[in-house]
């Protein structure tokens, strides 16, 4: 299901804040859909959730759970 603009922004913020998505160096804020899908897949895998690359209820719930403020080094590209 397509995300509403507010939820899309919240998901992007989460993926950026915790290192699943890297701001493109050239500064454009628009992320390619495949980058977002890839970032979601990495988050789902690290959270031991079904890996779909889609925003489902389990992923939504996990993103709401209380956590540490430091980034997660699970995206090999961002880890590098």
């Amino acid at each position: 299901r397509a995300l509403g603009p507010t939820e899309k922004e919240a998901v992007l913020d989460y993926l950026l804040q915790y290192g699943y998505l890297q701001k493109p160096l050239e500064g454009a804020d628009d992320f390619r859909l495949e980058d977002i899908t890839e970032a979601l897949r990495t988050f789902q895998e690290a959270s031991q959730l079904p890996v779909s690359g889609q925003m489902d209820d389990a992923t939504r719930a996990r993103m709401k759970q209380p956590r540490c403020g430091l980034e997660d080094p699970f995206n090999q590209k961002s880890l590098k």
Partner: protein
Amino acid sequence: YLLLGHWRKKHLTFRILNVPSTLSLPAVRAALHRAFKYWSSVAPLTFREVKAGWADIRLSFHGRQSPYCSNTFDGPGKVLAHADIPELGSVHFDKDEFWTEGTYQGVNLRIIAAHEVGHALGLGHSRYTQALMAPVYAGYRPYFKLHPDDVAGIQALYGKRRPETDEEEETEMPTVSPVTTQPGPMPNPCSSDVDAVMLGPRGKTYAFKGDYVWTVTDSGPGPLFQISALWEGLPGNLDAAVYSPRTGRTHFFKGNKVWRYVDFKMSPGFPMKLNRVEPNLDAALYWPVNQKVFLFKGSGYWQWDELARTDLSRYPKPIKGLFTGVPDQPSAAMSWQDGQVYFFKGKEYWRLNQQLRVAKGYPRNVTHWMHCGLQTPDTNSLTGDVTPLTTDRVLGTTPSTMDSTLD
């Protein structure tokens, strides 16, 4: 696990700067002490609480605004805490959370604190969702303990906790920092024998006796320093010391242990147990001619190649077979870049030429080597050559780097 950094020392202090409104100071203190204890139980770390002044790790609570943290929090839920990686030491908790202990209600301070201390010690987030270092809080667990991945991570940083330390520090929190025994009596470099000598980094000559170390220069012995002030974590009354310009490593030997430092920083995982040479060595030196380290005990020696697997089963070999004219059981030994070797025993020293034969006119009194009261360099009457009694004249180094080291 992910390693983000590590402390160069293992005995750390911490300070609790403020407490949240939902827990009393004694309850916060108990929770935080137990949080530290998880880590000091599996790694050779000690944590001592200080209640004033500077501390290595500083724990505090702040909310959406903070005068000293750009990473503001977000109210109840979501982000609970954050911490800096070594050697910064800041650990911050969101003061708007409902911090609790001993209940499923709210957010358990002890578990979150243990996680954040893990970051402050150098661990990143774990991929194991049940690990303490997992990014998401998995809720209150009354019998919480570290996950194997947490243990593997902290031991990768600081080594395993040695069994003997179990007796030493089997104390309830606050863990006592290692007993800082009063240093032994200060030796007089001009009348004392030496435990060890070495040509160290940057061509400085170090002499060790008891708990003290000093440099030896043309103008005589330098000021005495406590060994542990320069080489953190190193005990006194050493058996032997040797610096290898080939690897940049300095090894110290005492009893059945060996310490390794690069410059003045202990390498992770040290001290280690000596297992392929005998304990209680007498002396050690690096011989630049073949770039090997020689270890001495009694009438025998071992030749060790630091960078190759050395078959030491054929050792020890008799010292006299290679170093002609030197005494058994030397108290110290060192070499100089030109391959000249010095042996020390009691208050005498021997100089050997590049063929490892004792030069004429030796042994001489160590006070001569220490330049005590002598300003003129040693000249070998037969050849008239100016023999570098100590190593500094040849390098022209000055004793200043010791001070800069201390600085």
